[in-house]
């Protein structure tokens, strides 16, 4: 039987999202701090690759998951106005990042719920 990695992957992503949320909260709290540079965590890509779930591609037209993962990466420095005090926090960016995190977290928890329900349905006769 193949090991079921979904729960492991989901909990890893949930952890990554919560850490990212902490970083965003720090950015928002420091929105008026002189000389503060906005921070972000490294993309989930590294964690994804360590877990080793890959989509199978049998045709060259199939989209590869590496492309999908690259789209998660945020470009933090590009397009951000640098304030004279050296503070690079863009409040609108941070707030939208926060709601993005919430959305991903919602997807994550509902996936876990669904998989759990599926497994229970299998176990029940």
């Amino acid at each position, binding site marked *: 039987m193949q090991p079921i990695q979904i729960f492991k992957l989901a909990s890893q992503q*949930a*952890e990554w*999202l*919560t*850490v990212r*949320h*902490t970083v*965003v*909260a*720090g950015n*928002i*709290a*420091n*929105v*008026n*701090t*002189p000389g*503060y540079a906005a*921070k972000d965590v490294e993309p989930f890509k590294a964690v994804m690759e360590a877990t080793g779930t890959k989509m199978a591609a049998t045709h060259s037209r199939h989209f590869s998951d590496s492309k999908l993962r690259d789209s998660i990466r945020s470009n933090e420095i590009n397009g951000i106005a640098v304030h004279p005090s050296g503070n690079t926090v863009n*409040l609108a960016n*941070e*707030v939208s990042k*926060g*709601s993005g*995190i*919430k959305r991903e*977290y*919602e997807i994550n*928890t509902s996936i*876990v*719920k669904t998989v*759990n*329900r599926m497994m229970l349905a299998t176990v029940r006769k």
Partner: protein
Amino acid sequence: MDPLSLSSRIAASGLHAQETRLRIVSENLANAQSTGDAPGADPYRRKTVSFSSYLDNATGASRVKVQRLGLDNSDFTVNFDPSHPAANEKGMVKMPNVNPLIELADMRETNRSYEANLQTIKQTRELVSLTLGLLRNT
């Protein structure tokens, strides 16, 4: 500590810093007309507030705190009012270097930052309730 409760603590530190800032703004506004009481005495000097981020070593989170309360050393505006108790021999009275427009702009900015921090706390609560929702029987 788990990152989500850390988020709300960071946001709370932001709220606290913004509250201090709002206090300073209201002090400045309240004292916008506070002159000295002796002839030639200095009036109220505008206060400033500066934030700094500090790294919480136990958790690695960057919280914010009020670094120091400073004084604005710009020049006082001078009005001609010979009947005023603080007027000097030429009849000039030094008025505080408080510009209400700057203070109001500062207040708006404080408001916005405070709102953003509140939003963070709200969001944290939603994330926690999503996690707790996993335990719920559906």
